[in-house]
């Protein structure tokens, strides 16, 4: 029992040590440009612990969290959905356009926009799923291609069909504004910063994903397919059906990544709509060990670092140093997980061998 506890502790130590290492590397980078890392981190912590910074941290963490969930669902059955990026951008564009095109009572309007986003994300991910199931195209390759295709198609649709008719002097390219019934008012205003309401929906989403993956028959099949596809197939799980369903669910969740920004801030799809969240989601899922709770923690860490770094520019330190921090976190986490995984595996093999030998000896004693 204590051994299992120790292993669990070992797993938890990994992200913690990765974060420490990342800050160490960032300190070296700061020292290299002649800045004091101590004062930099002190001002980051001072600024980052203010109330409005914490609110901003949550706002920044929510899309990352949803992205992490979308990626984690795929990872749980060894599917690499690198295409989350394309899925959420197509979904956000279509949902914004659809949301602006209809008028519905408030709660229905929100639900409608979310359903459009989930359908669009699922459909885009479904292409990769069908290609894998029907034609054996590896999902990594197809989703990379689909990301770029999404960029092109999205730009085309926005420029030609979904764009708001602009006034002569306007240069902004964006979809029509979603009416107030399709917007979410802030949950609270703390220290002048709006806490976006989508955090509640994201929390429910996380819980639903947890239940789906860890507490249902489908989730069991999914995880089994991830750990040992052959065993799962023999036990009657259709691999093709699992691949397709998982891709669709992952894409549907990915469709929701942009919703926090859409409901709470932009109210339209614009050219400044955040990009790169799909790839950050991969990082968050990896650091968070593909578990909703871990992903939430990782998203909070990334969100906090993003926010706290804003102060660095005022101190004359390039805030870009935190991109290095994040990159090092990702790399060291994946390396450390691999090392721990192998360590645990060897220990288990050793323990099993010892157990077998003990049983053999007992048998011999009995036989004698």
């Amino acid at each position, binding site marked *: 029992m204590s051994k299992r506890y120790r292993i669990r502790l070992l797993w938890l130590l990994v992200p913690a040590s990765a974060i420490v290492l990342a800050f160490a590397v960032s300190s070296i*980078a700061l020292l290299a*440009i002649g800045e004091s890392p101590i004062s930099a981190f002190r001002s980051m912590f001072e600024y980052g612990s203010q109330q409005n910074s914490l609110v901003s941290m949550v706002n920044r963490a929510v899309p990352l969290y949803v992205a992490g969930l979308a990626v984690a669902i795929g990872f749980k059955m060894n599917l*690499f959905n*690198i295409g989350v990026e394309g899925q959420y951008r197509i979904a956000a564009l279509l949902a914004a356009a659809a949301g602006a095109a209809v008028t519905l009572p408030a709660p229905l309007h929100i639900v409608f926009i979310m359903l459009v986003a989930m359908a669009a994300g699922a459909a885009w991910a479904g292409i990769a799923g069908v*290609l894998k199931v029907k*034609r*054996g*195209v590896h999902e*990594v*390759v*197809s989703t*990379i*291609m*689909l*990301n*770029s*295709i999404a*960029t*092109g*198609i999205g*730009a*085309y649709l926005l*420029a*030609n069909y979904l764009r708001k008719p602009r006034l002569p002097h306007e240069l902004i390219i964006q979809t029509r504004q979603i009416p107030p019934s399709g917007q979410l008012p802030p949950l609270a205003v703390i220290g002048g910063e709006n806490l976006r309401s989508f955090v509640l929906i994201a929390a429910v989403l996380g819980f639903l994903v947890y239940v789906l993956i860890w507490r249902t028959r489908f989730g069991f099949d999914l995880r089994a397919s991830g750990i040992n596809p052959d065993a799962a197939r023999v036990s009657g799980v259709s691999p093709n059906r699992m691949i397709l369903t998982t891709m669709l669910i992952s894409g549907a969740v990915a469709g929701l990544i942009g919703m926090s920004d859409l409901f709470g801030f932009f109210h339209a799809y614009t050219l400044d709509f955040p990009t790169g969240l799909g*790839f*950050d989601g*991969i*990082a968050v899922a*990896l650091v968070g060990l593909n578990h909703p709770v871990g992903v939430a923690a990782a998203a909070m860490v990334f969100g906090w670092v993003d926010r706290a770094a804003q102060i660095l520019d005022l101190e004359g330190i*390039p805030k*870009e*140093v935190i*991109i*290095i921090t*994040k*990159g*090092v976190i*990702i*790399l060291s986490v*994946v*390396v450390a997980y*691999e*090392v721990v995984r*192998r360590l645990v595996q060897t220990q288990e093999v050793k323990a099993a061998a010892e157990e077998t030998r003990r049983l053999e000896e007992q048998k011999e004693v009995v036989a004698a």
Partner: protein
Amino acid sequence: MSWGGLDTALAQATRGRRLEARRILLLLAGVLILLSAVRVITGAPDLTSSDTYGAALRLGVPILLAGLGGLYAERTGMVNIGLEGMMILGTWFGAWGGWHYGPVWGVVLGIAGGTLGALIHAVATVTFGVNQIVSGVAINILAGGVARFLSVIAFTGHGGGATQSPQVTSELPRLTVPVLAGGKLFGWQSPDVLGWLENRHWFLLSDTSALFRGFMIDLSILTIITVLLVPATFFFLWRTRLGLRMRSGGENPWAAESLGVRVYTMKYLGVLISGALAGLAGAFLVLEGAGIYREGQTGGRGFIGLAAMIFGNWRPSGVGAAAGLFGYAHALDLRSAPAVHALLLFAAISLTLLGAWWLYRRRLTVGISTLVIGGLVFLWFAVTDTVPAQFVYITPYVTTLVVLAFASQRLRMPTYDGIPFRKGEQIT
């Protein structure tokens, strides 16, 4: 086995290769004739002008370098999604080196930058056995951050900023072939024979001259090196011992290990060469393209390179052809909208011919659906006047997906591509 049997087998293989080469030449000739015909019908001279071919070459070089990079890595069994990031490092270090020490150092440091990214990838994946996709994604994120950080500290206040470098004025040697394409020969302005032929606008003859002329005018030394890398890569990987050992890491690392090949070293080598080529591609973008480092300059070319590698069936000549095709599409898009539109007619006719061929081979479903698609493309050509730029942008990606979806049985990737290899453990 008798030597006689081996001889027959070798002879067959040689004959097969000759047939293959003849088929490729035939195909190329067919494409050229068809393009010339479309040029005459639509009256879009840019479709086959030497300027277009020259631009296609310049735009194809970074894609080709990235594709060859991917090839080296995947032939040793290592998937390298991090090509894009390594190319970003190549652009930054290429610009920094070019700005400080001149173009030669720009190239050297660009290569070094890409190799550094590859070293991280190799340590994580080969030594620590981290999943190759995960590591590649991490490197793409990291490279963007490192480039941004370095720009802030190196370029701000020197005529650049967080997202771009100062102007890198760096002229590497250039060559225009004399006599055939009008280059200078010891200061003597030689005649431009192919140019003269091209300007006659004769069917096929002018178009063919333009193709050759496009590959002879204003060539950067880097372009020449890159084009030569295609046969060099083939020779190195398929005709040398080291190449064979490297490929054995991708075909069957356990068998290779049992024969005494140092598989880890081979994999390291493959990944490092891959990063070096991606870095060179980045340096090329800066030194021969924009003359400046700009954030987002690579524009997904690492991924297009990956697409070219797959489209080219993990073969150097195939990667070259794919890079040329993608470069051509991009060049047309940059140069002339009517020519892109004319290309639709070309696609429609090709699809129709392909569909007819399949029908002749009694592959009814594929044949009919290809014919239908060909008809639709023709309809598209007939009812519109232009093709949106975004459609040209997605062409390489869509082509690759279509090829993967419908011709994947003709593709053959290295058997153990992307599968982690641990010394002394056999998983399969």
